[in-house]
């Protein structure tokens, strides 16, 4: 593999990583900024006995964060492996 190929592999790797990161950050902004803004209206709904808005900021968004990080790492590991950067 020539130096140029290696460089373009790095670029493609970084483009994929960056796209994944952007998706994660958009979801992050939704759960951490948009949802809390809407707690008042959401509280008119009930979810397993909770006012929905309260539920989201007490548990829902938190669960979303945990899931997001695990999924992100799973995808990122796949990207690393695809480009052969996964070796420890």
């Amino acid at each position, binding site marked *: 593999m020539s130096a140029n190929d290696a460089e373009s592999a*790095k670029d493609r*790797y*970084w483009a994929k*990583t960056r796209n994944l*990161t952007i998706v*994660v*950050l958009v979801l*992050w902004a939704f*759960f*951490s*900024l948009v949802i*809390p*803004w809407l*707690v*008042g209206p959401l*509280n008119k709904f*009930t*979810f*397993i*006995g*909770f*006012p929905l*808005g*309260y*539920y989201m*900021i*007490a*548990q829902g*968004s*938190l*669960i979303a*964060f*945990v899931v*997001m*990080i*695990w999924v*992100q*790492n799973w995808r*990122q*590991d796949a990207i*690393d492996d695809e480009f*052969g*950067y*996964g*070796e*420890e």
Partner: protein
Amino acid sequence: MALMQGRFIDNIGRVYTIYTGGFLAFIILMAILEQLGVGADTIGILFVAFTIAIYAIIGWLSRTMEVDAYYVAGRQVPAVYNGMATAADWMSGASFVALAGGVYFGGYGYMAFIVGWTGGYVLVNSLMAPYLRKFGCYTVPDFIGTRYGGNLARLCAVIVLVVASFTYVTAQIDATGTIAARALHIPYHYGVWFGLLGILLCSMLGGMRAVTWTQVAQYIVLIVAYLVPVIWMSNAQGFGVIPHFTYGEAASSMTKFEAMYGLNPPLEAIKGLSVLTTPHTGPVGDYAEWKFVTLALCMMAGTASLPHILMRYFTTPSVRSARKSVAWSLLFIFMLYFTAPALATLTKLQLLDPSLPTAIIGKPFAEVASLDWIRNWSDVGFLAIADQNGDGILQLNEFFMRPDIVVLATPEIAGLPYVISGLVAAGGMAAAMSTADGLLLAIANALSHDLYYKMIDPKADTAIRLVVARVLLLGIGALGALIASLQLTGILGAVAWAFCFACSGLFFPLALGVWWKRANREGAVAGMVAGFGAGCLYLYYVYTGGTPWFGIDHLRFGIVGMAASLIAMVVVTLMTPAPDEEIQRMVDETRVPAGPPILSAKH
């Protein structure tokens, strides 16, 4: 321990399983002693003393004279254990002691801390941890100093780090003092020094290695101590053993009780204590949503810039395990944070719901005044009841409490055996000590590695460097205890300030250092100086009585700091030449998980 020397890492699962079993056995032993008539005071003292003794032993066994072990625990901490250590490092006295109390009194507004302190890990994982691990630095200023080059950038980072961490550490020492005072029945200002002694025992001899392994032990204690009372209480109230998904009805019923008793300010306020005036579940008042979002944003960006957290991810063996360990960290932290609102709700229900035997609001004043837990906490000045309207009935606005004590007092409020109160005290102590350890180490390491070794005496040999680090640790700890004993601000307030300082000065220089190749030294210095300067000036302005802009008060001054930091960094970077090719190549290397670290080991 001797039979496992050198192979501790291989036996780690077994060691901590035995430890957890031993801790549970100790709890059962205490419960038996209580049944045999041993006094509550003795049990409280035994709990605190026993757990601190364990941490001190771990600290002693982990002593080291190697630079790599002292600064980054030899970079061999497995992801799961680093996750636990980070969780303990992270969950401070504020999370353990004050958070549920904040939700109890602050409702919606305080939940911003819960969202902020969990959501921040998404930023840590996406923007910071894997790249800083690849860099191979010992401290956060080490990254700034190498990426941007030059001692000025390094020095700015050290200053922001020291101010933020020091603000934070005084709050932690304050928390250990509060708990020690209550559990050991000693005056607060002795409690503070006692707490510091425990903290130093864990970190002095073994640096990061000792702190890592005590933090894992402390996580186990604190999570058990947090969950047991909630599970017990919820079971007693008929919400089952896992209240998190079943207390919805309790949360919904709060509106009813709030209407029944009325959320009125007290006729006569009592200094330092609060009455309940905020609704539990929804936003109220001007800017409520804006305030939530700005506070959450400051806490999240602060999470991703606080050096004592970031440096935990320097201790893992690889980039992948650094990411994995962020995921574990958040999972372990989540366990406590989604319990806190449940605890706040159930405790409130205990006090407010007239159908429960523990209710006090609406009961005859004399009857409430004779309750043991009311008397115990009134004696130390953390709680007060006053029949201000003279009707002989305790109204909601006649019950005063310091928010910080909600968690500590809950077992007594719910009428749980004293062994649970002792357990909670030990848990709170573990939470405050573990965070204080991490912070003191972050400060001392930045000063010894970045200021002393990198800037003042680059030829210093290992022994001298490690002696300097330890002397600094001792001095900073003592200074922290001294300031904590002055009690300048509440625990939660001081913590919010620390996050705002950190995100004002460090967030953009750190994030853009990886994500924007064009970012250069001039821009980074401008970003740190402008962000930190603007944040401090704004804090001074609001704190001395200035009218907050758009409701941005002293808890969320990081918004102003971050805005200034971003603008200054981008503008100055674009006005000055791009960094040279070597730096650009360094950034490229940072983005790739494989290959050797940027900085050599033992730099």
